[in-house]
């Protein structure tokens, strides 16, 4: 078996990063579906999207933090850090876009708005979330490329496993 401590600093990023990927994409899909629902349960879909968005947003910033910790270690070992830079820029952009979307959702909860304005605010939120999802998918793609093409964060062990 490969020796060495599993709980290396760079391990915290892959452990945390899958939460925002799942939560924020489902939040976006949920809010998108809510626009096609004409009955009273639309409100429940919007609330579900809001809840997923808040938790997803917090986990996104946690992932940005753990990614920053991993960066200093991984960037010295991989052969193409330009991919890492693309990954960082996409991830940070995504985190900011979803933070704006979260702020808009909070605004819609705390202010009594006319139905027309509320729908407009949800539409604006959805646009931010869809744009954020695009960056999230790209960040995921470059992250996977870093691991599977360049072995970022992978513990180096001998070929014969001794």
């Amino acid at each position, binding site marked *: 078996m490969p020796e060495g401590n599993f709980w290396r600093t760079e391990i915290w990023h892959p452990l945390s990063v899958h939460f925002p990927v799942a939560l924020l994409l489902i939040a976006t899909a949920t809010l998108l579906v809510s626009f096609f629902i004409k009955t009273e349960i639309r409100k429940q879909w919007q609330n579900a999207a809001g809840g997923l968005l808040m938790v997803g947003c917090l986990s996104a910033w946690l992932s940005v933090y753990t990614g920053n910790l991993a960066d200093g270690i991984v*960037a010295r070992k991989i052969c193409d850090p330009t991919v890492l830079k693309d990954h960082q*820029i996409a991830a940070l952009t995504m985190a900011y876009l979803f933070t704006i979307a979260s702020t808009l959702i909070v605004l819609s909860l705390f202010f009594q708005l006319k139905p027309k304005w509320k729908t407009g605010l949800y539409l604006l939120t959805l646009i931010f979330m869809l744009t954020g999802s695009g960056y999230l998918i790209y960040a995921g793609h470059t992250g996977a490329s870093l691991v599977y093409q360049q072995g970022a964060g992978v513990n180096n062990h001998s070929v014969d496993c001794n």
Partner: protein
Amino acid sequence: MKHLKLLMIAFTLFIVGACGEKTDVVESGTYQGTISEVEADKSEIYVKTADDKLLELYFTETTTLTKDGATVPFSELAEGKKVEVEVKKEGNRLDPVSVKILE
């Protein structure tokens, strides 16, 4: 709606710009430039060269840092200082061999 779309695009581009600048890959050699950012906790510096290239350099165990011929600590580096860096290109990674503080 058209204005909203344009606003969204402009806003997104602003956020992308604010979230970081792409760095450049250069051939092995010696370059002069100005430090645009120092990340002390990662022993990392960004150097803007005269031909507008942005080099992201992570110090290694063998990187030497000198000023007037004498070895100085990493804390001597600061934004705005002029430096001469010798880099070795490994794949697309730039390993700093030596960093000299010029001023």
